């Protein structure tokens, strides 16, 4: 419970006082994490820019970093939150923007405390980069919707309580106009989750089959036919947040390659030396670019460089891991484990060089392909003309597939 009146001026010192007050009543050392987070939510310190009563205080978004740093300074950093990335990063802002008061009251708090896990049912086999082409059908039946279709590349689906789901409700209008967005209960009848094995041998992701799944209309987010606009809000929040902590020089995969180089002199050749140095230079350039962006954000001047960071790192990861295998030579022809299993999380460093190489191939596909990111840079940053569109004015059902 906050003690100061909510209307008080919300500057950084005020927020630090609120953090101090919370920690005083809920000693992190003795309080259960979920309970503590519930108290933090109630205190408006979950997302300070959210409205009061919904985890926030209506404060400027930039002050969230102050709160996070203060909790960190006091030693309270919540753990085990990896599985909440979709709920926290994508579902919460979308529910805030488009949810009814009932939906916001029902979902935001358990989402924040980690009681309920969320996943995202967007991608389909026939709609990858072109999300708006999706074909999962939702047909209204009185106060409920009946959903049929198949979704792919769904991480966390096997652990999730709820999903954010985009469907097609009107196939007779152009594709962007006939979509509707729902909250889907993953325990509902007709929701079947199957692991999707990837080329590394394991299954980080799932396919989700939806067969006559009934969703109450009260679970709709946004108006009927507004699904594309709602989904855009979700995807805007997908951009990887640039963290508050600077990254050290020579981090990530280049550290692995440099370590091999330093400790295994028998593997060295002049050509590999030059190749390693070129990648070291590029990795350091990418790191400084990210660091510069972090500094820009810290002074409230975000730059468009963010859209390029993922794209630069995916290429780097691919090239460094490819070099790693060539550097290792004979050992680079081996692999650790092809077993079909669900990993506990993607930890590149803990796996073999072969895994680094294979897994990094996904970096330029997942979360926006490098091709789409280049389009975005060309059009939104450089202002070059958009692609000629042949699918804007055609009913979805008449599009070539």
């Amino acid at each position, binding site marked *: 419970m906050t003690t100061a009146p909510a209307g008080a001026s919300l500057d950084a010192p005020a927020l630090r006082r609120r953090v101090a007050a919370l920690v005083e009543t809920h000693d992190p050392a003795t309080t259960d994490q979920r309970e503590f987070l519930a108290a933090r939510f109630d205190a408006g310190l979950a997302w300070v820019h959210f409205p009061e009563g919904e985890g926030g205080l209506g404060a400027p978004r930039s002050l969230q970093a102050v709160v996070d740093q203060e909790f960190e300074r006091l030693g309270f950093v919540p753990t085990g939150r990896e599985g909440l990335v979709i709920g926290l990063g994508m579902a919460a802002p979308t529910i805030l923007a488009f949810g009814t008061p009932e939906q916001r009251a029902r979902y935001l708090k358990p989402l924040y405390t980690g009681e309920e896990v969320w996943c995202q049912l967007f991608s389909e086999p026939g709609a990858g*980069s072109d999300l708006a082409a999706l074909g999962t059908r939702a047909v209204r039946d009185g106060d409920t919707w009946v959903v049929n279709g198949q979704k792919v590349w769904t991480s966390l689906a096997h652990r999730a309580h709820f999903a954010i789901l985009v469907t097609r409700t009107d196939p007779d209008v152009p594709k962007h106009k006939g979509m509707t967005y729902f909250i889907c209960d993953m325990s509902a009848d007709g929701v079947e989750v199957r692991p999707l094995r990837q080329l590394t041998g394991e299954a980080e992701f799932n396919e989700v089959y939806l067969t006559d799944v009934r969703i109450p209309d009260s679970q709709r987010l946004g108006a009927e036919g507004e699904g594309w606009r709602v989904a855009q809000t979700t995807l805007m929040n997908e951009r990887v947040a640039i963290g508050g902590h600077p990254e050290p020089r020579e981090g990530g995969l280049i550290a692995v390659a440099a370590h091999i180089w330093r400790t295994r002199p028998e593997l060295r050749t002049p050509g590999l030396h030059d190749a390693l140095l070129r990648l070291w230079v590029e990795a350091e350039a990418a790191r400084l670019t990210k660091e510069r962006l972090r500094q820009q954000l810290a002074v409230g001047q975000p730059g468009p460089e963010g859209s390029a960071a993922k794209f630069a790192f995916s290429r780097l990861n691919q090239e460094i891991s490819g070099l790693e295998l060539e550097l290792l030579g004979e050992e680079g022809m081996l692999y650790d484990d092809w077993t079909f299993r669900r990993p506990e999380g993607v930890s590149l460093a803990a796996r073999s060089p072969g895994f680094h190489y294979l897994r990094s*191939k996904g970096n330029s596909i997942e979360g926006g392909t490098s091709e789409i990111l280049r389009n975005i840079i060309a059009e939104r940053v450089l202002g070059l003309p958009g692609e000629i569109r042949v699918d804007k004015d055609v009913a979805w059902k008449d599009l070539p597939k």
Partner: protein
Amino acid sequence: MSEKRLDLLYTEVEQELRASVRSLLEDKSPPEAVLARVEGDQVTDTALWKELAGIGVAGLPVAEELGGAGAGLRESAVVAEELGRCVAPVPFLGSAVLATTALLEAGAEAEGDIAALASGEAVAALAVPLATPPGAAFPEAVRAEDGALSGTVTGVVDAVTADVLVVPAVGPDGPGLYVVEAAAARVSPVVSLDLTRPLAEVAFTASAARRVASGEAAGRALRRALTAGAALLSAEQLGVAEWALETTVAYAKTRHQFGRPIGSFQAVKHRLADLWVAVSQARAVVRGAASAAAAARQDPGDAEAAREAELNAALAQAFVSGVAVKAAEEAVQLHGGIGFTWEHPAHLYLKRAKSDAIALGTADRHRLALARLVDLPAAEVG
């Protein structure tokens, strides 16, 4: 700079051979079947290998009087292309190329061992790590003493299904090439990056062995086997690249995004055009390497032919490795999500391409070999 004019085309006979091999592989070993095999008990398809041997594939560069088809390494290269195109799990590289060439180059004492390999009745492996470049020093991992071998060799291709092992070993009187029954060694499979090509560790413990070459002749036979292997491997890599390019072009014509085939987007078109140019160049380079290898094999005493074979093999490895990897990587990327799944065969080609890029020496090591062969000396470090 002098060089023999190499025939870079495919002869009619070669094209007929290609058609037979392709038809057999399409029938017996389509990608889905390979994908299913790689998780079974034995990756290597010995039944398929016997069928291939039935059309002469196991003994192409072996003279008829030694039990072979009396063709040459150019024909072997055409077969390697087709096997690469299907990532076929057969012991062609280990047995029909590396071991057989080593025995052929070893001379008279090895002749008796060749017929069984050429007919496909037996399979052999050359007991060196597959990553060994042709110019490597003679391996010392195995010691020979009193007609028996001891020591361990890692990363041996096709050893898992081998009946016979051809083993470079060093004895009191220097290097030698030995023949050992596989039953006399311990062969332990390892987990390889290339799902379709099993590697194994081979351990000898006073294993009974028969010497088929010694001294410089043993070194030469090994070097020539690895050189021929490098040339033939480049042909396999060409096949991998061709599959990747063709499959991706076909996919780009049918996969629609934004209401258009993705192959109508200019950035995709230009990347595929670049890849096609690279694959066309790889084809010329591979034909050059195969022709030079065949010429050297035909006239083992011709030092200039041997040098041209080394040069063209190094060139091929230096050039084609990158093309095959690039083609497989582009295949995965341009297939999007489906290319990242286990169920689509693209990953079999990616793993083969990357593994092949290390096999018989990385491109980097082959460039250094070329530097010596064409007199572009390294910088003095100082």
